[in-house]
């Protein structure tokens, strides 16, 4: 930020009060998606669209995981269903990978746009008010987006390492979604990290859900008054849904199911040598 001296560069105006240039000229011509993304409003649009994708993801992620309450087999079956989506049109796991690629792209675009908008805002606000600010409309959610976003972003990496890659979960067994989850949340620190991250997520998506209507220019007197209510409801639904998982594990509502684990281990061929896989052979019909 030090490279721009706001007062030094002045526009070609002969007036007695030259106008400082803050962000430099944005009017370079190029192909429209790029040029659009180069503008602040374009980046906000990208944040909103990628935000909608990520919101859809967190909602369905939560809804899908509710199957944990129906038992290990239901949840694992759901996991398998995801891998088999659109089979036979696509081979197994292809659809899931397409979704993952889409979400990863949305995730990184969201972060990149946020990063460069933050830089733009920092350039525009070189100096704080010496006497402080008294915010009237801005709430905790809107002012903490950067921090809740960073918390959620870092948590996503941990969450993947924990429950997708398994590198952060000692008892991890690929394919046994249910027991992986239970194993993970039985560790107090992990549960706490999860709870904190989900509260941050809730705050983040509350402002995000309201804000995206503005950024996309979705504005209509018929639904304007519902935007905040919708955002509140959506954020509450996702957050409460997600928080039930660690709480249920810690409260013993959801318990480990070793039989299911063993079955998965046998089916995926990673059974330890002392496990008798024959017992599971006729379970699946």
């Amino acid at each position: 930020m030090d490279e721009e001296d706001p007062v030094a560069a002045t526009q070609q105006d002969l007036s007695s009060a030259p106008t400082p240039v803050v962000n430099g000229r944005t009017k370079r011509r190029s192909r429209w998606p790029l040029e659009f993304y180069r503008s602040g409003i374009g980046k906000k649009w990208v944040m909103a669209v990628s935000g909608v994708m990520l919101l859809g993801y967190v909602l369905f992620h939560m809804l899908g995981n509710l199957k944990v309450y129906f038992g290990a087999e239901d949840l694992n079956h759901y996991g398998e269903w995801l891998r088999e989506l659109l089979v036979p049109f696509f081979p197994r796991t292809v659809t899931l990978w397409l979704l993952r690629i889409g979400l990863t792209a949305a995730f990184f675009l969201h972060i990149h746009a946020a990063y460069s908008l933050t830089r733009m805002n920092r350039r525009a606000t070189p100096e704080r008010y010496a006497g402080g600010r008294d915010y009237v409309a801005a709430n905790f959610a809107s002012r903490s987006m950067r921090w809740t976003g960073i918390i959620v972003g870092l948590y996503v990496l941990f969450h993947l390492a924990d429950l997708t890659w398994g590198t952060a979960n000692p008892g991890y067994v690929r394919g046994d979604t249910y027991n992986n989850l239970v194993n993970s949340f039985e560790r107090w620190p992990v549960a706490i990290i999860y709870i904190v991250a989900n509260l941050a997520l809730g705050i983040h998506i509350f402002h995000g859900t309201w804000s995206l209507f503005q950024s996309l220019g979705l504005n209509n007197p018929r639904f304007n008054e519902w935007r905040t209510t919708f955002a509140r409801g959506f954020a509450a639904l996702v957050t409460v849904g997600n928080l039930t998982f660690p709480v249920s594990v810690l409260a013993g509502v959801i318990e480990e199911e070793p039989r299911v684990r063993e079955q998965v281990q046998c089916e995926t061929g990673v059974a330890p040598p002392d496990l008798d896989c024959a017992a599971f052979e006729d379970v699946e019909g």
Partner: protein
Amino acid sequence: MSDVQLDPRVPAGPIQEKWDQHKFDMKLVAPHNRRRFKVIVVGTGLAGGAAAATLGELGYDVHAFTFHDSPRRAHSIAAQGGINAAKNYKGDGDSIYRLFYDTVKGGDFRAREANVYRLAQVSVDIIDQCVAQGVPFAREYGGLLDNRSFGGSQVSRTFYARGQTGQQLLLGAYQALAQQIGKGAVTTHPRTEMLDVVVKDGRAVGIVTRNLHTGAIESHSAHAVVLATGGYGNVFYLSTNAKACNVTAAWRAHKKGALFANPCFTQIHPTCIPASDDFQSKLTLMSESLRNDGRVWIPEKMDDTRAPADIPEAERDYLLERRYPAFGNLVPRDIASRAIKLEVDAGRGVGPLKNGVYLDFGASVDRLGGDVIRARYDNLFEMYERITDENPYGQPMRIYPAVHYTMGGLWVDYELQTNVPGLFCAGEANFSDHGANRLGASALMQGLSDGYFVLPYTVPNYLAPLLGEAVVPTDDRAFVEAERSVRQQTERFLSIGGTKTVDHFHRELGRIMWDNCGMARSEASLEKAISEIPALEEEFWKDLRVLGSAEDLNQGLEKAGRVADFFELGLLMCKDALHREESCGGHFRLEHQTEEGEARRNDDDFAYAAAWGWTGKGQEPALHKEPLEFEHVHLAQRSYK
């Protein structure tokens, strides 16, 4: 100074055809030559902004100067009520001729007929222009433009944009100007105050300015100079004018030879919020439109301390309706102001300082419903409540007259050119169209008429013969001397080192002017002012204290220059008022009134515009008369009964 030519140059022919014929007769500048002419426009209000934008659009090299930080801040922005135009959209008998007639009559027969006719003529073009620019005038549900009636007129011809008509019209002009600035056709000089006109060989050839941020004194030369610098109501200190409004540009031009006409014609607006204490820095206007639905009254009994709601109908004196049954609360401003003043002077005022009268919406709320009143005036009611902490929906407003507009100004001919060739003057700064009293909603009309539709024809008529002539270089002696005198004055202010602030002197001057040359004037009061002003001025030059330096933003220094000019102007106003042995419009001489206390004009001796020439400091000003002839609107005593 006796060689000053006072030729109004009104074209011959029937009044309806004068302007069209004259437009044809005036010389033209071909499009490819226009860029070779440099025109300076000082002031960016309705008149200046519109003129700069239009001349830029035509292709002239225009330089627009404003002491504000943006052209959009000129005081035209504060006009509330509306703008007149003879569109006759309401089908109630309006016409160009009627607007012309009403304006001449409303001006108490002290305006030039040909100018007023032209004003009425182009009024219809102004509305077209503004609507096309996106000015959001009030509309009816059918989508067509709405009109209302305004003080002093019996037809609905006033176009309005809520209570912010001036703002919306100025933004229209500002946007047009901004477009030209963006295109490079107009160069703006914000935060730059004009401090002198440079005259060489009898022609205006440029100006000297001070950059208010850096203090730099600079010269700018041009082929023609347009002054559109507004009125001088702030000579009274307390007025509805913005704090920075001043006479400096016009006055310095006056001292360079331009005649100043009818300086004593000042308009006192009847509906302003009364002052609340001695620290009051300005008075706030409540739009005249309020009188459409508000009724002015005072308690019949002296010293009635009851709350207004407790005073029964029978014990209220609806003073305007009583005095003027035909026009009632809608009489012209001068008439309403004087009626209110008479009652307050008699000790019948209301409010804690007994310095106002009630303006009551109770009857209208009963008749039309609160929602209608809210839709019409809500922003004004809110503003009133913010200032007074009283809710006008629950109790009547209190109002009192305040200085609002100055009809006098630099003398100009039909082409808006002063007697100094190359120096034009437009808008409130000139004297031309309103005579001794301006009708409501006519100021915006005049500013835009001058800027959009008159100067863009008449300035080229002056420029055309100058084709090929270079501007006078700014190192010419005329510029060097003007710069030197400006610099000297600035240094002088800083070096006095006295004890009193500029505001102190300004307030004192204002008191003298208001007490002696305000709503009612007499020979004795004017003589008193004429002796007091020079004494105060002398003290000013001895005991003024201006702190800070001349090299950066120094608001005290800016004010000092303006107040110095107000002293000289104030004196001239009093002399003009003293010489005009009659009462007309905004000029009311106690010696000249009817038995009922109405103004008595003296058409035999004073049917002229008094144009004063500067003869030097401390010298008697030279009077030049432009006789006014009324061929169309016959001289008659105004009656609004």
